[in-house]
């Protein structure tokens, strides 16, 4: 069977599965719509959290990023997993004990302030839409490449599927759909990795193959990789050019940001008990770690494969480079998407791939008659094209397409739900129309989800130029605003309303200001985005960690000089700290 037919079958079957689950798990109360009735088994919830968290970026882009960054890619690996320790130990059990529907609701209650709740809603909506636009874009790309439909059609199909299970099933539908999506995406991710690991090293376990010797030689794979890339003027794979402080700050911002992302936090409201919230975070990380420990292996193997495909012989020898006319089929196919491009600068009909930004090597390259790097490779190709590069059977490629779509849709659905819950529960029900019945609230929740899907689809089709840049925003804001305020709400009885609001606003304004100044989101950058200009040498990607520190500091100082929280709030904090008597998540 040809690839397109197989892909249609794989994607079609997975969609049928998601819709079937949505019909089976239809939500009929607000409790089911917002938190799946708080009856989800912790292992199942962990799996759903993993799918929720692992987005199109984790599935499609991360291994590619690592492939080109080498050690520098570690910030994503550690940053996006380490946050789960913070979630498990500092947030999840207490928020579960508190037992409400949304993150802003907790912030509003703990700091006895509608203003705090609304600031939290604004952060949440901004973070979530930023993210969702990227997911929808991912859906469009996967559809257009694998199903050969245009991006708009792909988007509309994706939106339709999310609409069915998010609007109909709410959190309950999304939870069980995400479990199915996790299974699809993890199989799709690991199967090609296992094949490639086996081909390259004879060891089928990617996590170990990565440190094994290359088949037919005594060289360790990473040593070989270091040698191959440095010969072409690139930085050694296992080191980085970034400063230690910047790596530190980015990792911290990603960890804390992960722990502060509303669509991740809310997943811990859906388990029955406090102890389940703790273990569920552990299970989530287990399921995430399966992909996150495979990704660096995929990155390294892909980089080695790509480099050796192009550089067929010794560097600088006349026949050492791939002849353009003899390039493999997968290159031809990806050229049509524009994600891979070749330009024969020196007109020799061969492809030269090297680091022409390295002055020393560029001089050497000139002696070989090379006139600049001729191959442009987009990060995103690495995972999607990997099965083709390794010449795996067509059904594996079809599976990867289904996996990529599953990763994007599961995250989009989780985000759309927190947006709709915040609008119907935090804004409408609590602020504007408090006398709404449960049935009406459920209906507004569904309408809000539907509208959010429409906006997300639009953002996916017309991505504002800043989508890639605002990812730093999403994490920075979560790290600098939501995370500290929740932590202080649990671990301090002294931090009060004034402190929390002042802290959140400080973190928010500082982090946003810094990113806008250097990245020029909405405006042209005020300052050049280079290491010399950065505060303490910290890039905009890592500045959320400074924003977080400022948030804590301001909140404590302001709380010291204003009135302590009322007694009933202090009692509430004591109650949150003890697991006993959690019960179901309840509305006021």
């Amino acid at each position: 069977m040809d690839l397109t037919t197989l892909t249609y079958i794989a994607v079609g079957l997975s969609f049928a599965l998601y819709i079937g689950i949505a019909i089976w798990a239809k939500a009929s109360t607000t409790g089911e719509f917002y938190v799946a009735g708080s009856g989800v088994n912790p292992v199942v919830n962990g799996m759903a959290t993993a799918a929720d968290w692992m987005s199109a970026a984790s599935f499609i882009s991360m291994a590619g990023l690592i492939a080109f960054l080498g050690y520098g890619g570690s910030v994503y690996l550690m940053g996006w997993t380490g946050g789960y320790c913070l979630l498990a130990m500092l947030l999840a059990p207490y928020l579960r004990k508190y037992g409400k529907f949304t993150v802003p609701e907790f912030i509003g209650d703990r700091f006895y302030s509608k203003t705090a709740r609304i600031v939290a809603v604004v952060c949440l909506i901004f973070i979530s839409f930023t993210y969702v636009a990227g997911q929808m874009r991912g859906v469009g790309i996967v559809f257009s490449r694998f199903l050969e439909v245009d991006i708009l059609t792909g988007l509309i199909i994706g939106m339709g599927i999310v609409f069915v299970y998010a609007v109909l099933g709410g959190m309950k539908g999304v939870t069980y759909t995400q479990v199915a999506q996790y299974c699809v995406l993890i199989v799709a991710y690991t199967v090609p990795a296992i094949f490639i690991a086996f081909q390259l090293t004879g060891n089928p376990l990617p996590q170990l193959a990565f440190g094994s010797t290359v088949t037919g030689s005594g060289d360790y794979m990473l040593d070989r990789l270091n040698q191959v890339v440095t010969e072409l003027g690139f930085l050694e794979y296992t080191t980085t050019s970034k400063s230690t402080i910047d790596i530190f700050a980015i990792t911290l911002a990603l960890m804390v940001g992960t722990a502060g992302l509303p669509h991740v936090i809310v997943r811990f409201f859906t388990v029955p008990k406090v102890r389940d919230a703790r273990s569920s975070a552990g299970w989530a990380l287990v399921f995430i770690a399966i992909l996150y420990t495979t990704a660096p292996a995929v990155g390294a193997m892909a980089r080695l494969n790509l480099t050796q495909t192009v550089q067929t012989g010794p560097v600088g020898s006349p026949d050492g480079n791939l002849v353009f006319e003899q390039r493999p089929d997968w290159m031809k196919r990806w050229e049509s998407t524009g994600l891979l491009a070749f330009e024969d600068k020196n007109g020799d009909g061969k492809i030269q791939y090297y680091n022409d930004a390295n002055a020393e090597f560029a001089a050497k390259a000139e002696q070989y008659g090379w006139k600049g790097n001729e191959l442009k490779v987009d990060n995103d190709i690495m995972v999607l094209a990997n099965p083709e590069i390794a010449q795996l059977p067509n059904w594996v490629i079809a599976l990867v397409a289904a996996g990529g779509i599953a990763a994007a849709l599961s995250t989009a659905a989780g985000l759309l739900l927190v947006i709709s819950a915040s609008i119907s529960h935090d804004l409408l029900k609590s602020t504007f129309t408090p006398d709404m019945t449960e049935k009406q609230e459920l209906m507004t929740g569904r309408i809000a989800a539907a509208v959010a899907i429409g906006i997300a689809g639009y953002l996916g089709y017309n991505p504002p130029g800043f989508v890639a840049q605002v990812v730093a925003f999403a994490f920075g804001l979560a790290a600098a605003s939501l995370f500290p305020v929740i932590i202080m709400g649990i671990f301090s009885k002294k931090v009060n309303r004034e402190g929390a609001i002042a802290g959140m606003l400080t973190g928010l304004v500082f982090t946003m200001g810094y990113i806008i100044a250097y990245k020029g989101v909405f405006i042209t950058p005020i300052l050049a985005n280079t290491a010399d200009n950065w505060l303490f040498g910290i890039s905009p990607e890592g500045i959320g960690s400074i924003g977080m520190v400022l948030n804590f500091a301001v909140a404590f100082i302001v709380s010291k000089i204003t009135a302590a929280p009322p007694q009933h709030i202090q009692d509430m904090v004591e109650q949150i700290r003890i697991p006993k008597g959690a019960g179901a998540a309840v509305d006021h």
Partner: protein
Amino acid sequence: MEDKSGAEYWRRNVKLVLTLLVIWFVVSYGCGILFVDALNTISIAGFQLGFWFAQQGSIYVFVALIFVYVRQMNKLDREFNVQEDE
């Protein structure tokens, strides 16, 4: 088992979390970032050690830490009789 003071329960809880977070910090920020160059001089089975901690080791340790936390907290809950009814 009797009810002991909530303050003591909370103190032990915080102490456990702090201990685990120190390990969390050491394997990720310590081994993976601050001392990566020193550890990279050591190679084990094809991995430079600092690189391994940054890309694999820290993730394994994170998983282990959460499950240690879960186990210890469940024990602590029972000791102070604040566990939820089964």
